[in-house]
């Protein structure tokens, strides 16, 4: 009987947690911007502890070789953040651009913002980048890390007492509590989305851009799935253990909210492209190594629009040569040839062309391209390997 009493006490505790689980589905209006405090210092024991932890993380990240140490790039991303959330808010943020293919960004409670290169590869203009950075900044401004930490702690405390005091009745309840914790996280994501949209609405960028990011991400997921002979699924309702609302949900409520208060503006696509041009080869290289033919092909098409630059043609050649079906090698050779014809300067296009041709039984032409590669880049790392291919 002890179990029943304890279970009743536990139900009372759970009831306090549940509103967060139930809330979340309805579309909310963009949140008003909270007042901004400069040089905020953490106050409570929990908050100070959390800051200490992320300060240590930031020390490590600062010295990591994965961080792209290019001041021009960092300044540019910081500039987009400043134009999105306002000059006073953005100044204290430290931005670290990490070379990683994930479509992701994050912001820690101490003001450290991490931007993955996979995000920079996927957004099309400053407005889309600003919408993601504004979302992350929303987490920061609303102190979501701290609140999420406290919520998880309460939930795990209750679950522990349940497991001890009501081991036979606690299973379903514990599941409910775990579910409420994930629902809480999804609620935070939606709050950050809405605050991010408010920043965007107050910025020179059009707030309609926020939904674009999620719509294209879904299309890319479809392409990846198709390339892997899988079925893509986009649901409106989030799974029980999902920490974020689904992409479809986010795209829908962001699109609706932006339509309610349309604000035209310049998404600054040309400036974005110009800045990213220098980094595109590396980012594309990383993406191709993912062995995600469908998703990468979609991404390249998105980047190209109706204008295939030599750089994108070369990347497409690499992608097809990597998959390596006989028909892919024919296509790859064509892409390399187009890239070279359009003025692709790097010797590696001759290398890709030569290798593709040799494996397509066009040995003589292949050998000629490889010789050209060695002539252009005699000290290449694989020069000796390639020269044996040429000699045979």
């Amino acid at each position, binding site marked *: 009987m002890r179990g029943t009493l304890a279970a009743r006490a536990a139900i009372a505790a759970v009831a306090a947690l549940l509103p967060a689980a139930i809330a979340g589905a309805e579309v909310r209006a963009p949140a008003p911007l909270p007042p901004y405090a400069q040089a905020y210092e953490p106050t409570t024991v929990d908050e100070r502890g959390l800051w200490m932890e992320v300060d240590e993380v930031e020390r490590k990240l600062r010295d990591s070789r994965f961080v792209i140490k290019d001041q021009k790039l960092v300044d540019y991303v910081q500039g987009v953040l400043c134009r999105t959330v306002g000059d006073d808010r953005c100044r204290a943020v430290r931005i670290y651009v990490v070379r990683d293919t994930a479509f992701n960004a994050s912001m820690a409670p101490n003001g450290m913002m991490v931007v993955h290169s996979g995000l920079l590869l996927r957004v099309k203009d400053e407005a889309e980048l600003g919408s993601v950075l504004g979302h992350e900044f929303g987490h920061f401004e609303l102190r979501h890390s701290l609140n999420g930490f406290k919520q998880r702690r309460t939930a795990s405390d209750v679950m522990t007492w349940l497991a001890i005091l009501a081991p036979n009745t606690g299973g379903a309840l514990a599941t409910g509590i775990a579910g409420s914790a994930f629902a809480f996280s999804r609620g935070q994501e939606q709050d950050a989305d809405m605050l991010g949209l408010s920043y965007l609405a107050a910025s020179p960028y059009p707030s309609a851009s926020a939904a674009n990011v999620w719509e294209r991400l879904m299309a890319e997921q479809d392409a990846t799935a198709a390339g892997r002979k899988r079925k893509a699924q986009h649901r409106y309702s989030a799974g029980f*253990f999902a920490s974020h609302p689904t992409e479809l949900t986010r795209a829908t409520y962001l699109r609706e909210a932006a339509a309610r208060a349309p604000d035209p503006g310049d998404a600054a696509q040309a400036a974005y492209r110009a800045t990213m041009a220098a980094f595109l080869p590396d980012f594309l290289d990383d993406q191709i190594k993912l062995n995600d033919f469908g998703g990468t092909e979609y991404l390249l098409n998105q980047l190209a629009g109706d204008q295939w630059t030599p750089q994108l043609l070369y990347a497409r050649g690499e992608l097809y040569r990597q998959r390596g079906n006989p028909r892919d090698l024919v296509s790859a050779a064509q892409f390399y040839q187009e890239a070279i014809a359009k003025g692709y300067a790097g010797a590696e296009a001759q290398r890709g062309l030569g290798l593709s041709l040799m494996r397509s039984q066009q040995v003589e032409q292949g050998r000629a391209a490889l010789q050209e590669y060695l002539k252009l880049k005699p000290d290449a790392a694989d020069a000796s390997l390639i020269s044996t291919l040429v000699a045979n």
Partner: protein
Amino acid sequence: MKNWGAAVFLPAAAFALLVSAPAAAQEKTGNKAGFSIAPGTARIVLMRPSVKVGEQSTGGMFEPNADWTAQARENLGKAIAATQGRLGNIVVDYEEPNGADTAAVAEYRNLFSTVANSVITYQFFPGNRLPTKKRDDAFEWTLGPDIAALPGMAGNDYALFITTEDHYGSAGRKAAQIFAAFAGVSVPTGVHKGYAGLVDLKTGELVWLNADLKMGGDVRTAEGAQKRVEQLFEGFPGRTGIPQTVTAGN
């Protein structure tokens, strides 16, 4: 399916109730055979210690505490200098470089962690030893000689790496432990682990490593930190002519 959600959601909470510590047969200390610190004063560079102190919530989550960590950092620093001073060694804090060299230092720090974890996994558990580590006197691990080339290492003899992590059981955790004991379930409270290693800067070899998953001494107080440091330096290589073991605990 029962409690599966709990396990996914919070491994700490769920597993803490099920798993008891399996570390009984573990060795704690390894020394390179025949190694002793050369006569004269040894200069030891102390790499910035990794110190983490906080509370353990009822559900087993770590709640970092900035004040406790700052206190522990200070207490441990003093205790390390005092203990090494008694051995006739000088301990200097490593001056972290600026600019391009920071990445190299970070890499050596990571390398040390990786090597230390390998020692713990593949040497300290006798049943898990790699074939090359099975000879009784075999303790052959190295970070490579290039560590001496890091900025600020010149003129020093050894580099000392120290890591401690303490989760003090909260009142709620302790209460849960008592209630759980009545129900016949074991709820461990507190995590107190640490390790320390010494690298010879002439060769890059790891000459001593001590790792303990159940350490004593409350690092939030000066006396406790002294006790912790004495445990951390268990088996620290002495000089020829001085007894090999410095302090056998407390």
